[in-house]
């Protein structure tokens, strides 16, 4: 498979960003709650060559660059775990719905449709009110809001697969339901499922940063990209970089992941284009 140079560039930059941010605690071991009040509001080096800080410092004198890595790390981990949860929920509902058909299918499809009609931020708000605002809540919110798309995809694939000749012949030589599921169905829906998950990772990053921005996600001193933007909102006039740099990073991450996801879809599973 030939990868176009632009996509390759996106993959490499994303890979570097992800690796460096995952290694942040090793590369830059700091205590996130440490402050340095003598170094408040130092501009980024690009705008003030004298500055010791590549990306400037924030209102408590903390290095924006290092915090950015920690923030990206937390955002990526939360979005990824949420995605895994959404995939598992969607897989279970989709398989049950597709294999059983009938009443189960009707009920589950109704729930899927209903869920899609409630705005995701409100699901986040309900969960935060009831469970408190922390990382686990955000992961659950992503899982709970993300699954319907996965369920629809899995359901349509399962319905097609269970009528396929190779599944029928397997059934006629006496293969059990479990065996058909693991050997034929699961292996065949894995590829579209992975593509769909990649495409959705960007929207999960967006959801995480939006929830943190309104204060219903990760709480300080822990940080994510949304928390950083929200911290910077109060200092736009004197130190715009506090909000702008994490904002730009959010946009870059979302753009990278969604472009890579789109390309993967077109390459691996062009059929998916019409299905979702």
């Amino acid at each position: 498979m030939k990868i176009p140079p632009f996509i390759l560039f996106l993959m490499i930059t994303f890979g570097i960003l992800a690796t460096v941010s995952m290694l942040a605690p090793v590369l830059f071991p700091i205590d996130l709650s440490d402050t340095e009040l003598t170094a408040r509001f130092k501009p980024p080096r690009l705008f003030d060559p004298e500055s010791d800080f590549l990306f400037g410092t924030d209102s408590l004198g903390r290095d924006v660059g290092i915090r950015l890595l920690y923030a990206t790390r937390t955002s990526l981990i939360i979005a990824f775990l949420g995605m895994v949860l959404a995939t598992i929920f969607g897989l279970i509902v989709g398989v049950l719905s597709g294999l059983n058909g009938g009443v189960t299918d009707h009920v589950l499809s109704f729930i899927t449709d209903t869920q899609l009609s409630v705005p995701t931020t409100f699901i986040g708000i309900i969960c935060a009110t009831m469970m408190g605002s922390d990382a686990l809540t955000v992961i659950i919110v992503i899982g709970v809001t993300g699954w319907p798309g996965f369920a629809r995809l899995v359901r349509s694939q399962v319905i097609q697969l269970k009528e396929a000749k190779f599944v029928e012949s397997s059934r006629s030589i006496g293969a059990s339901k479990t065996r058909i599921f693991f050997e034929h169905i699961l292996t065949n829906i894995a590829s579209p499922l992975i593509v769909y998950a990649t495409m959705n990772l960007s929207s999960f990053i967006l959801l995480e940063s939006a929830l943190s921005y309104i204060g219903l996600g990760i709480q300080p001193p822990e940080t994510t990209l949304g928390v950083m933007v929200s911290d910077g909102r109060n200092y736009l006039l004197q130190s715009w970089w506090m909000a702008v740099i994490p904002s730009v990073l959010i946009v870059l991450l979302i753009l990278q992941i969604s472009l890579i996801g789109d390309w993967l879809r077109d390459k691996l599973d062009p059929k998916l284009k019409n299905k979702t």
Partner: protein
Amino acid sequence: MTRFIAVRVCKAILTVLFVWTVVFILSRVTGDPVDWILSEGGSEEAIAQVRHNLGLDFPLWEQYFRAFVDILTGNAGDSYYYARPVLDLFGERFVATLGLGVIVFLVTILVGIPLGVLAAVKHNTILDRLTMTFSIAGYTIPNFVLGILLIIVFSLHLHLLPSGSYGTAAHYVLPVIAMAVGPTASVARLTRSSMLDVIGQDYLDSARAKGVNEWAVIYKHALRNSLIPVITILGAQLSTIIGGSVIVEMVFAWPGIGSLIVSSARQRDFPVVQFGVMMICISITFINLLVDLSYSILDPRIRVKN
């Protein structure tokens, strides 16, 4: 036709009941609400009083119906944080949010659809490319990030528009842009692809051959046939707009329902959140119902099939 409407209405009612059931179960499963409200622990009487105010001293099935009827009749109890009736709090802020939502929805339709038509008619020209670039950008930039960038440029540097609060027409400009760009981009993109499906078809040529002018061919013959998927997505966009209003209201310190619900969620002010979420859900379901019914006006085949 009657049957079609009846089925849709039943579905809408079931949807609202379902959401209520989930909210109800969640609020009872995740712990005793009294614990959140009296987090430091209270006297016996205080606990009994809170239980009574919340209606927790009734059997579970009765709580389920009572609380639901209370919400529908607007008798939503008092906020713990503001110590005022929930309904009053919503009443004060409703107009601000509704105004913003209606303008954003109008912008989405009035800019998104013509933009999509333009891109389709001028397919593969620079105009088409520009529209699609805008569409990708609108899709990628989160509304709160866009809001902050707009504040920096138009309020803090150019001093053209206010950066927050509410009052004059100028206060609407930045929040409307921040909220409308995403939905407008989706609508434009879908209108374009839907128009492209229709635009090469023979019936348009026969209309042209009859001497119908080009404008009427595009807007009367082509657009009408490509509107159905667009209307479907408008329903979904509405839910995006309402969800987005929560965040954009926080960015621009907009005194609306969204910022009320968020600050209440932070205080774990449950009656406010519960009422807000149910009201939003009921309005979205109602509007989706209208969208569903409007298909049958646009496409008579749907009426017959159902």
